[in-house]
């Protein structure tokens, strides 16, 4: 069986296979400060003051507009707090960080769990062996009351990654390389299992980077498996094998995550702003890799750094990363989704160019007429120092 079939079979209580529609019992139902208020209004409309299926398994994470930037979003957060007070749901307020990251840090995400949320990158929790997916308001409303949702068991494709990565090449370059090869429709409706010796030394941060961008491949979720020759292999829809030992740093040019080139092909392109953070590249390890490059240097662009969570920020502070960032001339923002949120402060002026370590570079995402280029923390940091797109190795 594939990983997704194993997880769902265990939850459903019988063997399920791809193509089936099944009712899946849920371990966790989550909302954010954007999708949450609509789901709460929907809940009240559908169920009045009926209790949640399990208050300990409903969480609201404020990660988009924190602290609130106008009255409307302040009111939305108020609606969430009031609902939580009445129902017993847990609120992670404006002082915590990105939803998936803080839920995991608080022990609310375990291997084999089933989770729905209002974020299209919920699936990064596949890095921890949990099944999580982004859904619409009605699924959240029903999930809060009944603790289940229906799901179409997906087929699985396997992506085997071979070879040891070169210096200054990391998980972000690998997933951009995969996007270059498969395209943004490369895994429509599919689960992905990543395998091979390239991923074996990868820690939590790098696995999150790979898993989060399964969304950009139009996939459902990504898991990590060990190739064990003695065990019978599950049936995959397709298997891809990539030798990534020779790849150089990658960058997604505007305005699609699969418009990927080698950084050296576009080196020298002038940039105005750099963002290091997001659910894809906001862990301590990501910040540390950027800090190694920034240490003792000054940036020529605006550089905005955002830890994924307060826990990450505290570690970065303790280990001296903030000092390196401030000395280099960076702005360090409070933990959250930050510049990955449409309309968040940090917006680009028309014609400006930003390198971002996040996962999407759609047109207009951060200001009309601004360009977003996606790259690794290493490439982002090196480019901030030079003021132009730069391979981290030449510094």
């Amino acid at each position: 069986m594939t990983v997704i079939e194993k997880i769902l079979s265990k939850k459903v209580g019988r063997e399920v296979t791809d193509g089936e529609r099944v009712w899946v019992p849920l371990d966790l139902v989550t909302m954010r400060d954007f999708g949450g208020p609509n789901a709460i209004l929907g809940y009240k409309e559908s169920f009045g003051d009926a209790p949640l299926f399990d208050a300990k398994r409903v969480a609201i994470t404020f990660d988009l507009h924190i602290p609130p930037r106008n009255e409307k979003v302040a009111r939305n957060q108020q609606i969430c707090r009031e609902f939580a007070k009445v129902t017993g749901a847990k609120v992670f307020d404006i002082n915590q960080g990105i939803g998936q990251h803080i839920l995991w840090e608080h022990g609310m995400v375990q291997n084999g769990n089933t989770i729905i949320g209002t974020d299209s990158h919920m699936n990064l929790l596949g890095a921890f062996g949990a099944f999580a997916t982004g859904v619409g308001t009605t699924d959240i409303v029903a999930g809060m009351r009944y603790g289940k949702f229906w799901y179409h068991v997906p087929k699985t494709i396997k992506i085997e990654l071979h070879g040891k990565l070169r210096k200054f090449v990391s998980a972000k370059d690998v997933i951009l390389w995969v996007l270059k090869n498969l395209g943004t429709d490369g895994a429509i409706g599919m689960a992905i299992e990543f395998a091979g010796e390239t991923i074996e030394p990868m820690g939590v941060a790098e696995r999150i980077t790979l898993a989060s961008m399964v969304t950009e491949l139009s996939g459902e979720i990504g898991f990590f498996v060990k190739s064990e020759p003695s065990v019978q292999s599950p049936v995959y829809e397709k298997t891809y094998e990539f030798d990534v030992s020779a790849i150089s740093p990658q960058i997604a040019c505007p305005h699609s995550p699969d418009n990927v080139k080698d950084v050296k092909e576009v080196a020298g392109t002038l940039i105005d702003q750099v963002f290091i953070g997001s659910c894809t590249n906001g862990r301590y390890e990501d910040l540390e890799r950027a800090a190694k490059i920034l240490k003792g240097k000054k940036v020529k662009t605006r550089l905005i750094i955002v830890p994924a969570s307060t826990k990450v920020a505290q570690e970065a502070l303790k280990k001296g990363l903030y000092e390196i960032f401030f000395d280099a001339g960076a702005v360090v923002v409070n933990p959250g989704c930050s510049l990955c949120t449409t309309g968040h402060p940090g917006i680009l002026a028309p014609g400006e160019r930003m390198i971002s370590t996040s996962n999407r570079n759609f047109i207009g995402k951060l200001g009309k007429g601004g360009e977003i280029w996606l790259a690794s923390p290493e490439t982002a940091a090196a480019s901030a120092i030079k003021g132009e797109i730069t391979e981290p190795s030449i510094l």
Partner: protein
Amino acid sequence: MIKGKVWKFGDNIDTDQIYPGKYLPLTDKKEMARHAMEGVPDAEKFIKNVKSGDIMVVGKNFGCGSSREHAVVTIKGVGIVCVIAESFASIFYRNAINLGLPVIECKDIKLIKEGDDIIVDLTKGEIVNPDKNENYKGLPLSGLELDIIEANGLINYLKKQK
């Protein structure tokens, strides 16, 4: 069995074309229905003439983009009783079922023309075009999906189960 007159649209119609973001603050369903497909170029004829009981036949990746359920609410609100697509974006597909709007995937949509009167069998996934004496095979809905649609949406369905 669903019977209705066809309105045709192309590929990659996203949720912002189906229901432009500027109307997101609206909450009245009748008001929301007034803006169905408003972001699609050349949709004036549809907007002026669509009637309750009509069917939409669309191309690839219908409903891609944001997860906004307004896209389904507005299509249903304007009176569309079924959407047939070459393929759907997965979140739109889920939202449609959850709000009780029948959706069918069919690879032969190019054979169906605007203004055709067609009959759709959701259980068999079959589309009949009696005037042309043609049959098209689509993907049948699962029992679970049919049950949710029959109950006019997920919430009603689950309430009845309890």
